[in-house]
């Protein structure tokens, strides 16, 4: 299956996660094919991060499963994670390590050594414009730089699948533009899922958008189709209409 280029790179089937009585993610299913950039939208606490964590094999689903490049994230977890670049929520990194040492650690874990590792680290640093801070400990960096270190880590092995939890959060407008350009540039040969609260981003870079609230998928269509759902044609209004049903019911 992994060799079949037409099969979706990400397949999620009936993914459900319950924490005690609370259902964080309720029977979510979708697929993402090569060349797609999926925008994952929803209010805070809607289950976006939990879904992404299950996809990355960090949270064990209560039921359902997910496959990345044909590898089941639970039964074939390490193989699935080899083909995945994951940016966790908040872009955590080891604070005492320098940018270069951190990327060298990730490169080593990803199985690269010597010149190959150096080449990949240089490329990741170049893609995320981190060259100026490569020898600085991560804890001394601003929020935007930390986010880009997390992004560099996810891109290091040039994975076919990218799952990025709020990749542009905390970046200034110029940096946001750069990251969006980077995602668009990589889009044709990858399957990419990004979660975001910035709706203009969806129109700018996503080929498809999923709106999730209270753990359930409420919409799964192209940004253009979504915009038609509200008379104003603005994603903001569509988002509000879908995620808070009848706020001022007369």
């Amino acid at each position, binding site marked *: 299956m992994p060799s079949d280029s037409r099969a979706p790179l990400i397949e999620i089937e009936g993914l459900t996660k319950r924490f005690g009585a609370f259902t964080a993610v309720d029977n979510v299913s979708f697929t993402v094919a090569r060349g797609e950039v999926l925008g994952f939208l929803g209010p805070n606490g809607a289950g976006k991060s939990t879904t992404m964590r299950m996809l990355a094999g*960090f949270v064990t689903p209560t039921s359902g499963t997910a496959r990345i490049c044909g590898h089941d994230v639970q039964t074939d*977890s390490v193989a699935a*994670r080899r083909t995945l670049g994951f940016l966790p929520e908040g872009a955590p990194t080891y604070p005492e390590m320098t940018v270069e*040492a951190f990327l060298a*650690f990730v490169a*080593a*874990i990803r199985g690269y050594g010597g010149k190959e590792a150096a080449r990949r680290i240089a490329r990741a640093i170049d893609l995320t414009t981190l060259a100026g801070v490569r020898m600085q400990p991560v804890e001394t960096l601003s929020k935007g730089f930390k986010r880009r270190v997390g992004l560099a880590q996810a891109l290091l092995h040039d994975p076919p699948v990218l799952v990025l939890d709020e990749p542009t959060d905390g970046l200034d407008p110029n940096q946001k533009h750069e990251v969006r350009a980077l995602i668009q540039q990589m889009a044709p040969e990858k399957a990419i899922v990004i979660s975001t609260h910035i709706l203009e981003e969806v129109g700018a870079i996503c080929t498809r958008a999923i709106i999730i609230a209270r753990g359930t998928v409420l919409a799964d269509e192209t940004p253009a189709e979504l915009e038609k759902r509200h008379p104003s044609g603005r994603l903001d209004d569509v988002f509000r209409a879908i995620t808070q049903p009848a706020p001022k019911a007369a």
Partner: protein
Amino acid sequence: MRNTFIVARRELGGYFATPVAVVFIVIFLALQGVLTFNLGNFFDRNQADLAPFFNFVPWVFLLLVPAITMRLWAEERRLGTIELLLTLPITQGEAVVGKFLAAWAFCAIALALTFPFVLTVNFLGQPDNGVIATGYLGALLVAGAFLSIGSALSAATKNQVIAFVLAVAVCFLFAVASYPLVTDFLSKTVPTLAEVARRLSVAERFQGFTRGVISLRDLIYFASFIGFWLYLNTVIVEHRKAD
């Protein structure tokens, strides 16, 4: 196996990138020095051995080892880096063993830096250096046993203080299990448990090493002790990682 060493190398580097390493080693050496030379009557005993030194090692480790292990997993969970580490293509077992090995290597470095004690006793007399060597091996195994307890308990909480206190308490239980305080009480109430407690005691197992005896039983004891707690560690990480 390769991944285990990469994780261990990163972790060990982390100790030396922060003041943790220096503070730990200085306090460890100072405590061992004071205890051996003052409380242990190293000079008055007039014997060329390191018995006073090794008598205090488990107690110093009891206090200091949990200080190393408290951050092992609690810190990863607090910073969120656990999500990064465990979504890299490594197994949880590799991560657990890698972190444990880093902490153990660090203890070995601290122990190695007590070499002036060995030089001193060799300068003053003719000690049996074989007994000293087995003593060091025993001390390293005691450190490993306490580290495995501390590491597992660190995975159970995000709070480093709780991880520290829990680890000291549990290590203390295993250290004093063979002491009259415990065995007398148990033999009066549940006699069968008294024997079990004595056999499970880390201090009791360490005694053989300080007398120059390496028995297969003791080695198996330490291996299974560490193995058990690391297995528990993996289970706790699996269960609590995303909380």
